[in-house]
């Protein structure tokens, strides 16, 4: 089977004020359709950098990124924007949502960027909110929601867009451990029931119970991988 995401010898060096910080030093990774994968590693190990490169948010210093059989890293910014709009779902650590929009409008935002007509995007956003049991909060603004609820809306926004893969960069980092675990459970259920492909990062080993595939990252290198029985 063809992998959805493929990284080959991925390297990233940040340069600022003449100082070079190597963040990734040759990462190989393949994600297959329907997988639920965690990137685990301490703070500064390069998790965010890796997810950004895979999702076409940033460009590697060396190596290749492929998405659904297409080379990503050698394309221009406009192409990357289109890739993110149509193929990738992003969930970030915090402040994912646009403060002036309701949960429903936030969940529909990517569809609006794509030019989906209002009635259809509303329906799809509502369905997605329902999957995350957020339909009762559809009319609320982000500041009227708890941190966990906000993250569920962010996941719903990705879900509504039906991307090839959802990249979630420490989606639980700002949540308490119980809420964090609940969010991971929602994601796992979507993976199980809808076959959605997830790649998420965390520095919290407690969230890794029941995760089938775990890639360990340290100092910009893959230092180990576990695949467990579900």
């Amino acid at each position, binding site marked *: 089977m063809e992998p959805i995401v493929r990284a080959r010898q991925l390297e990233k060096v940040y340069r600022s004020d003449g100082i070079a910080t190597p963040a990734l030093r040759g990462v190989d990774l393949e994600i297959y359709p329907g997988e639920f994968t965690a990137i685990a590693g301490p703070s500064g190990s390069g998790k965010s950098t890796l997810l950004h490169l895979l999702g076409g948010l*940033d460009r590697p210093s060396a190596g290749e990124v492929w998405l659904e059989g297409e080379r990503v890293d050698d394309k221009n*910014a406009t192409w990357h924007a289109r890739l993110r*709009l149509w193929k990738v779902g992003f969930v970030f650590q915090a402040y994912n949502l*646009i*403060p*002036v929009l309701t949960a429903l409008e936030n969940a529909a935002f990517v569809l609006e960027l794509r030019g989906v007509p209002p009635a259809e995007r509303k329906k799809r956003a509502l369905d997605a909110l329902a999957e995350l049991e957020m339909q009762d909060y559809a009319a609320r603004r982000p500041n009227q929601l708890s941190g966990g609820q906000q993250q569920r809306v962010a996941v719903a*926004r990705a879900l509504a867009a039906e991307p090839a893969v959802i990249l979630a960069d420490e989606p639980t980092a700002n949540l308490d451990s119980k809420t964090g675990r609940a969010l991971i459970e929602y994601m796992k259920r979507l993976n199980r029931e809808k076959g959605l492909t997830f790649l998420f990062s965390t520095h919290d080993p407690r969230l890794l119970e029941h995760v089938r595939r775990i890639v360990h990252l340290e100092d910009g290198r893959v230092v180990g991988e576990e695949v467990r029985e579900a």
Partner: protein
Amino acid sequence: MWSLAWKNVWRGGGRSLVTAGAVAAVVTLILLMYGFAGGATNGMFQNLTRSTGHLVVRVKGYDRIEEFDQRLLYDLEDLKASVQRTLPDADVEAVLEVPALLAGTSRSRGVVLMGLEPDGHLMQEMVDRYLAEGQRPQPGRWQAALGQALARALRVKIGDEAYAFAPGTDGLGAGAFEVSGLIDLPESNLEARTAVLDLADAQALAAPDAASRIVVFLPDLKTLSQEKRIDEAKAQLTAALPEGYEVLTWREAQPALAAILDLMTPMLLIYAALFFGLAGLLVVNTVYLSLVERIREFGIIIALGADRWKVMRMVTLESLVLVLSGALVGGVLGGALLYRGAQGFSLPGPLAQQYAEFGLPVVMYASVTPTQVVSVFVFAVLTAIASALWPAWLTGRLEPVEAIRHVA
């Protein structure tokens, strides 16, 4: 996307409100300025043409001719009839201007004797309108209305005799006129050398059956924007009259005054541009600050797949929403004030007096053209877009990764 821009503009509250308020004030001010200037120019146009007519017919090359008798229209009755036939709705009247010496018992002055038709507009405009004392000269009674300043200089009062000398003409060349009235003309140098006679008396004195010019008043001309009709009438007259005559519009007869009126439009445009420029600085500041506060948010939006152009458009939309909502409020406010001003307004007393010297009426009627109103809103849109250029460009250059990692 408009609704998102609307929400984003007002989430800041105070700053946006102040900026939109400033735009509203600018729009109101410019509309009022246009309205006032429109009222003033229309008033000046009416005032000017009231005493000069809209069109003048005279001997070809009038300005270059020195001799009094060569400047005269001798076939006056035919000419008048022909003008009236060409412009049946117009009022047509003859004026005879005679340079003369006017003497009281002890003093004399060089003057212009104006022979005016008793039933014409000009007799009303020159004499009745400015009559300070006495009455207008009656036909066939050798009476004269003198400028007050002239009467003072000659030391004559109402009922006194004044002696007019116009030697070397085809008429009597001299005559005694009873001072029937004193007129207080707005221009003081005119007042010092003008005496108005009945046309027939003036003709008997200096030029039997002739006149210096024929003055044409077109009906219902109230605003400068109707000026086209004057040009059309001029073309008709020029075509209808025989060789040897020239037809001038009020504009050609009074080029300096017309130029003053014409200066109004570019001057107003410059003021409008200036005001909008100042408001634009405030808009730039507001749009820029709201961008700085939301770098992370724009990072997320870009990460979700909005390209450079889309985020630039979002910023521009916010600027448009900000400016247009201000402009709308200003438009309503300015419109309401203009509506009141259109019923007539006056400058405060002393100012009105001063400006009357320049031919500005005391009561004016605010007036704006549709073009002016549209131009204000075009200005507003241009201001919004120009103000958004730089912030939008900055937003378009945001690198999503840096923006997301940005901590405000």
